[in-house]
């Protein structure tokens, strides 16, 4: 764009950087796993991996929706608020059975997404402020609905979602895998996926070429919030309690980190679904490694910050050429 950018990034465009940009997150996971193989006792146990995968599920599901929104050059800060709303709604209607409650919760999520999407697509508000207002209002609403209380959830159906398994594979992990495939298909194999990335690449060009930009944006935000609602159900099911005050708190940060570390540029136009999965797993493995070596929470936050910066710094060259 400016002369500064050109001279600054030219000598860095080596082959090694290209490899890092494309496969950095996988390399990081491989290095981390190797380290744990030699230096962390009991890391390579089936039980441990089972725990890691179960723990990563809510962030992963939220990150899938976030990747879609970021693909349109947007951002969604309200996902934690949606999870809180899901937690608040579940105990009220669990009497009607698992399936109706899940549908209701997803509808609530979709509604929040519709509000986000309307603000962004129809009114033209910047995504960060539009979703900021629902981030604040969403959790407030959830606390109002729940009267600020923590309720235990005892319905066996919903507890099975969080704790049950099928042939040793936890249900929540199965749900996450299905959603990953669904989103990957949506992005790579459908017209909607192509349109979404076209909008993110250049909204003006997409409008000029006659794409229904507003409808695409609306649907993207609805999908993101609906996925966050599913994450809210799984999070509540795993805890066995509805905790609207803390469920999904700061999850938007982890989700954005997972997406960015996974190679999806914040400037839109690209969505890397498998990269997002890898990004979420990398963050999970990092925090697990730090916990297993008794590193205080303080340092794991600092490590996470350094990794975000590194990932974005490495991606920087690619987004600049876009």
């Amino acid at each position: 764009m400016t002369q500064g950018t050109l001279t600054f990034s030219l000598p860095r465009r080596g082959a090694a950087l290209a490899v890092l940009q494309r496969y950095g997150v996988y390399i990081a996971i491989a290095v981390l796993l190797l380290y744990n193989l030699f230096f962390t006792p009991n890391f390579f146990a089936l039980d441990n991996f089972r725990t890691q995968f179960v723990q990563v599920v809510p962030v992963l599901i939220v990150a899938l929706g976030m990747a879609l929104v970021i693909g349109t050059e947007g951002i969604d800060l309200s996902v934690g608020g949606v999870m809180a709303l899901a937690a608040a709604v579940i105990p009220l209607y669990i009497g009607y059975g698992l399936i109706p409650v899940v549908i209701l919760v997803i509808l609530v999520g979709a509604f929040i997404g519709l509000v986000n999407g309307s603000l962004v697509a129809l009114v033209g508000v910047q995504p960060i402020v539009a979703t900021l207002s629902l981030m604040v209002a969403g959790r407030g609403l959830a606390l109002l609905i729940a009267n600020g209380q923590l309720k235990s959830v005892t319905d066996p159906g919903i507890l099975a979602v969080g704790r049950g398994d099928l042939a040793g594979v936890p249900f929540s992990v199965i749900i996450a895998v299905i959603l990953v495939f669904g989103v990957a298909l949506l992005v790579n194999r459908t017209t909607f996926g192509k349109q979404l990335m076209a909008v993110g690449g250049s909204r003006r060009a997409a409008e000029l070429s006659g794409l229904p930009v507003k409808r695409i944006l609306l649907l993207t935000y609805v999908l993101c919030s609906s996925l966050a609602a599913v994450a809210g159900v799984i999070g509540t099911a795993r805890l066995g309690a509805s905790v609207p005050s803390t469920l999904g708190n700061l999850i938007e940060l982890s989700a954005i980190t997972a997406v960015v570390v996974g190679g999806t540029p914040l400037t839109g136009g690209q969505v890397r679904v498998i990269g997002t999965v890898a990004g979420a797993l990398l963050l999970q493995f990092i925090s697990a490694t730090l916990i297993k070596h008794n590193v205080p929470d303080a340092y794991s936050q600092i490590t996470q910050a350094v990794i975000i910066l590194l990932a974005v710094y490495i991606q920087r060259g690619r987004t600049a050429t876009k």
Partner: protein
Amino acid sequence: MSIAVEPSAGPTTVTQARRERLAGVLQGYGAAIVLVLLAVVGSVAFPTFPTLSNFTNIVTQSSFPLIVAIGMTFVILTGGIDLSVGSVFALGGVLAAYGSSWGGIVGGLLLPLVVCGTVGVVQGFLVAYAKMAPFIVTLAGLLAVRGLVLAVTSGGSNTPLITDPALQALGQSHVAGVNSSVVIAIVGVIVGTVLLTRSRGGQSVLAVGGSESASTYMGLPVARVKFSVYVISGLCAGLAGTLNAAYSSSGVPTVGVGLELSAISAVVIGGTLLVGGRGSLIGTLAGVLLLSVIQNLINQVGSLSSSVQSVVSGVFLAIVVIFQTVLSRTQRL
């Protein structure tokens, strides 16, 4: 053709100009107008609202977020964002307590300002010279600085106290009936306004936010301007944290969570455009006061829980940005 068009074009441009001017006024002073309306309604509805002690309470509580929001306004004016201010606010408080325990008021001011200024330097460097997205850089800052706060307070379990009498006096003394932090915040608004409207650097801030490429072509030091606003924001957040700690005589490691959101809300409500280039510190002042008055009025009702407050602030923010978006569209026509 042209003869037929010209007379009808006259009145249209006049009404259009008038509409644009009205939109401009609403954009710049909307928050102040709503603030006055809300204060009048509040005074009529609640006899405990328009009392001197309540007003003193409101302005004291507003002074700390206002100082943070001053720095945030500078950042947003360049089209950037600073998500790290809540963590930096906590860091400032904790370091003020540590600094004052060995260096008195000098240590208690110097240590937090130097460290928080350094946080701003690092973030400013990454945004301005390494050309990374402000959102991501300061998001990492939010995490890292909060981690740092936890690291120096043994995981947040240690709350260092401020026993230095001079620093306590700075935070708790009164000038003309109001807390000293209120005076410092107002001085900050005045100095910042003069800088923005009367100095070359301030004008550069507005220019960079208005159009970065145009500023580059005009030969403005774009990178240096962007770098400086993050340093200003870090210093403001650190100073606010220091004053808050001095006010409460302790550096609490958990304060300031979510402060970035209320600061951004206040700046946006105050009429500063998030895309940069346009806004004012007077607007930010009105935005901060407005959020405090809303909170105060909800407390006046009494029976309402604090969660109502988040719903109201969230909805209010949404309404304001809808208005602003529509207004700025009217002006551009």
